[in-house]
């Protein structure tokens, strides 16, 4: 069954919220409010997360992994290098001295943490992403938009809801 996209643009955050709430509460054929609805906003609204319902974030796990691996890698790389450096004794210290190695381990811990977090961010947020089918530059200005994907026949229902909540503009994907 063919699907089509609709993009509704709102100037008022509350209207958008009301629209989303209604969409979530309305059962529409071929439209799953968890899967098929994307809210695009110019700023980070903590409320959006609330009214869209619980959506988990996994970036922290990347962070944990990155930091631990960075630290371990740092310590063993450095200590291993020291153990293989042919002329090693320096300043009466042990060949594998802890305090300097801990300093470097600490730096590697952070380095791994930051790098892998960003990697996790890109993966979790799906970046770099292909542009979605419908977009308006107003989103990066001051308006909030709801992108929905639905069956051909349900489009009218959705449109009606958007219109009800005073959508400024409703974009439709060109028919196929």
């Amino acid at each position, binding site marked *: 069954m063919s699907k089509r996209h609709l993009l509704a643009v709102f100037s008022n955050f509350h209207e958008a919220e009301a629209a989303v709430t209604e969409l979530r509460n309305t059962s529409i054929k071929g439209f799953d409010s968890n899967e098929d609805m*994307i*809210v*695009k*906003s*110019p*700023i*980070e*609204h903590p409320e*959006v*997360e609330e009214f*869209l319902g619980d*959506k988990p*974030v996994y*970036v*922290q796990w990347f*962070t944990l992994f990155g930091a631990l691996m960075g630290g371990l890698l740092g310590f063993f*790389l*450095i200590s291993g*290098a*020291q153990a*293989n*450096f*042919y002329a090693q004794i*320096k*300043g009466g*210290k042990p060949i594998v*001295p802890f305090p*300097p*190695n801990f*300093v*470097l381990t*600490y*730096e*590697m811990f*952070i*380095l791994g*943490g*930051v*790098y892998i*977090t*960003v990697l*996790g*961010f*890109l993966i*979790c*947020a*799906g*970046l*770099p*992403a*292909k*542009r*979605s089918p419908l*977009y308006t*530059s107003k*989103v*990066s*200005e*001051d308006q909030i938009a709801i*992108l929905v994907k639905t069956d051909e026949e349900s489009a009218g229902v959705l449109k009606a809801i958007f219109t009800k909540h005073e959508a400024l503009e409703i974009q439709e994907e060109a028919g196929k």
Partner: protein
Amino acid sequence: MKDINEDIAWAKINTDVLRSLESPRKLYWVIVFGALAVFSVAVGCEVYQYNMGMGVANMDNPHVWGLYIATFIFWIGMSHSGTLLSAILHLMHADWRKPIYRFAEAMTTFSLMTAGLFVMVHLGRLWQFYYSLPYPNDRSLWPNFQSPLLWDAMAIFTYLSSSVIFLFVGMIPDLAICRDHLHAGWRKKLYTVLALGWEGTDRQWRNFRVTYLTIACFLIPLAVSVHSIVASDFAMSQQPGWHVTSFPPYFVAGALYSGCAAIITLFIILRYTFKFEEYMTLAILKKTVRLTFAIAMVWTYLNAVEFASVWYSHDIASKEVLIQKATGPYAIAWWGMIFCGSVVPLILAFKRFQTNIPVLLVTSLLLNLGMWLERWMIVAPTFSHGIYPWTWDHDQWPSWVQWGMVFGSFGWFTLLFMVFCKVFPSVSMYEVKEMVYHRTLASKKLEDSGMQESGKGAH
């Protein structure tokens, strides 16, 4: 006085900031070419020094470090303000940071890049600098991981790359704005690539929030570690005047201090150059000034602690270095540091000067002069009046090559900064919108509750 006008239209924020990216004013070109000229002085000095040997910098055998190391610390210190504004204040939900953190972060990045240059020009054999990198090789030759200089290299690399990433990640939504609102051309292509397809979807924002917070959390200990490691270059040694336990916090405080002073300077310059009066408001300036004042007092306190602990110790050599600083050939610089670092900031305590732009400009420059002198006074007197009296040397004075390099570094920094300001939005548009949005909500709430209360009162 409000930090920002809450009625400002979001579209206007976009246009105002994006305007700064286009059609530079004449003043901009003057600054850019001026910076280029200043930087070329440093390039000339380096070419000369590279060919002749380090001797032309006029260092000598006990006095082996000079302005290069002092200025290196200065620029490293400068970099800490960006982290302070973007990371610490972010965690503390101080939203007034929002209009000014972007350029502070850029400052972080560029001052680190400037500091890196000083490590390079300091090396006697610059062409062999890669010996200090841990790259695998057949002969199992590794750098010496015990050396604080290597920790430095590692910390700075981590800090620089993390800062660049942090700057970039924080800029993605703005890059999308640029992509959407600028005319077609190479810039549009650039922003299209850099924006990574950002559309402000709920998924993107959700992950963005967590990521940004996480990196901010990492950056704070990182920044502290960077400057305490720089302090370790000195504190880990056995030299009088360097072997001081309080050096790491002292360095960190000094770093934040000089960074804040530099933010004030750049705040004023940007505000004027790009006509950002509506975003870089006097109210925000006032907050920055107060923060600077607080840090100035912390720095002064740590300074006093250092002097006191040296004074009451039995370490004769350290004590003599301190006396030497105050009375010897460096006395002018040392007292200059005390004056600029501890006395001048008292101006900032007065309300009427906290928003007086000419006064603040001069003050912030003096503060930075003081902080530069501080670094020089950490490095030089220990060499000229060290542990071994036979090698005391009170005649050493940096040659024009050293001064030229120091001077030129400001050109390099300005150049990088000016190019950045033309290519990337130096005010975070999406965060200013957030700030306006949240402030509006907050004042609305206040109005509501105020009405209720007054209503109650009417009863």
